[in-house]
């Protein structure tokens, strides 16, 4: 699907759809609708998730799911307020996301609910609980 087709597919499940070019688009969704968007992608045989990116935007943590829709890459964002950093897992829809969600949990402290294996991913065993190295608070502390 090219970017226009992807945009048409997810238009009910997302806002602020920004088509950068025919092979790249960004869209913002929310906790209620993101699964709908992903299930819609799945009906069009989108199976490849490139990765999940977490960005600390100050008040919120922005979680971006990057899907390969061949050729277009859909970047689907969800903003999570820092006092409610929880998101249900997507591994039931995209099993390939299992590691990226663990990465997200440990680096940004987003709790992925229902994850089949929520162990620490790559930080050392003696890394303190509740410290998330990609959070801005951590950067301030580490200075």
């Amino acid at each position, binding site marked *: 699907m090219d970017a226009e087709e992807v945009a048409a597919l997810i238009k009910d499940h997302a806002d602020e759809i920004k088509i950068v070019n025919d092979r790249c688009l960004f869209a913002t969704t929310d906790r209620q609708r993101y699964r709908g968007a992903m299930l819609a992608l799945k009906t069009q045989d989108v199976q490849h998730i*490139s*990765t999940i990116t977490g960005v600390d935007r100050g008040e919120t943590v922005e979680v971006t799911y990057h899907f390969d829709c061949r050729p277009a890459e859909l970047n689907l964002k969800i903003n999570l307020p820092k006092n409610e950093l929880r998101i249900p897992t997507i591994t039931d829809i995209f099993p390939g996301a299992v590691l990226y969600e663990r990465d997200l949990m440990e680096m940004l402290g987003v709790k992925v609910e229902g994850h089949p294996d929520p162990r620490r*991913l790559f930080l050392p065993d003696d890394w303190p609980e509740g410290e998330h190295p990609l959070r801005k608070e951590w950067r301030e502390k580490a200075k």
Partner: protein
Amino acid sequence: MTFIVPIGPQHPAVKEPEFFRFEVKGEEIVNVDIRLGYAHRGIEEALARRNYKHNVYLIERICGICNVAHTTTYCQTIEQLAGVEPPERAKYIRTIILEFERIHSHLLWLGVAAHQIGFDTLFMLAWRDRERVMDLRELISGNRVTSATNTIGGVRRDVKPEHVPTILRGLDELERSTKYYIDVFSSDRTILARCANVGVLTKDDARKFCAVGPLARASGLKVDLRKDYPYATYDKLSFDVVTEREGDVWAKGMVRLKETLESIRIVRQALKELPNGPLRTKITLEIPPNETIERTEAPRGELFFYALSNGTDKPERVRVREPTYANMSSMKPMFVGGTVAEIPIVMWGIDPCFSCNDRVALVDSGSGKASTLTLEELRRWRR
């Protein structure tokens, strides 16, 4: 009754630090868990604290083997962020050094694969021929490994006309030897006995676990970002995407060897069509708030970058997801059901690069099943 066989973190088949915990029943592997992170250097955070120019050098050091793939992807990402287009000649030179990198990476794979199965003569031969492409890399960039050729807006080093005959001669030699290795790989009894039907990744599993690169192509998925998502000058050059159907270690090797021939073809075309012109476009490093993604086909598969700028000369966030990370999820189906003796070659089959991987590292639990199983669960699972 199962036993745990710990392998690593020192020298787990490849000379890089990772820890593998194999659960075996007799000779048979019934489960695998991987503990990564031993080479974690916090590079994503470090990138956000340095300016865009410094980051080129940091990115180059994520991984030695695929340093050009990393810098090309990074530079393309930042060029997109800033809305700058590099000159045509720079794109061709990028294509040439990217393909040199693929050739050397695949020949390195062949050598180590031969070593893993005890075929050290082939190891020596493959690495002898790999030296030819290393010499060509040195000819262009001044360095055998870390090329330091890419920069934001173009390239720093030119392919001079007097280099061209030497490169073409080198490519002829490489083509001859690669064809010989394809012949050896498809007929030698040792290779067939150790690689065929070993470490199989089915097409469905490859798709399910989002496998990338030669691993996916060896399982029959026709994915290659040089075709699917063209960058540099790949849309102007003709080459084939190599796939095999078997999904075993043999297919993974065959895909890499045939790709080496395609890479040679690409470099020849690029040299022939190399346009004249400047090498780089000037760029202002205070990039206004913007975000973008970029994907390229590194020797090991899809390399993904996301970058977010904030108006200063430092990025707000750079996310790197390199191919070994993506391929880790596919490890479990390849190991389970195999034997202990197959571990080194199956592990090497994905061509893992742990230093790439660990810049943000991970532990794998494959399909998401609990990694510590009770005996009862294990029995049920075995059926």
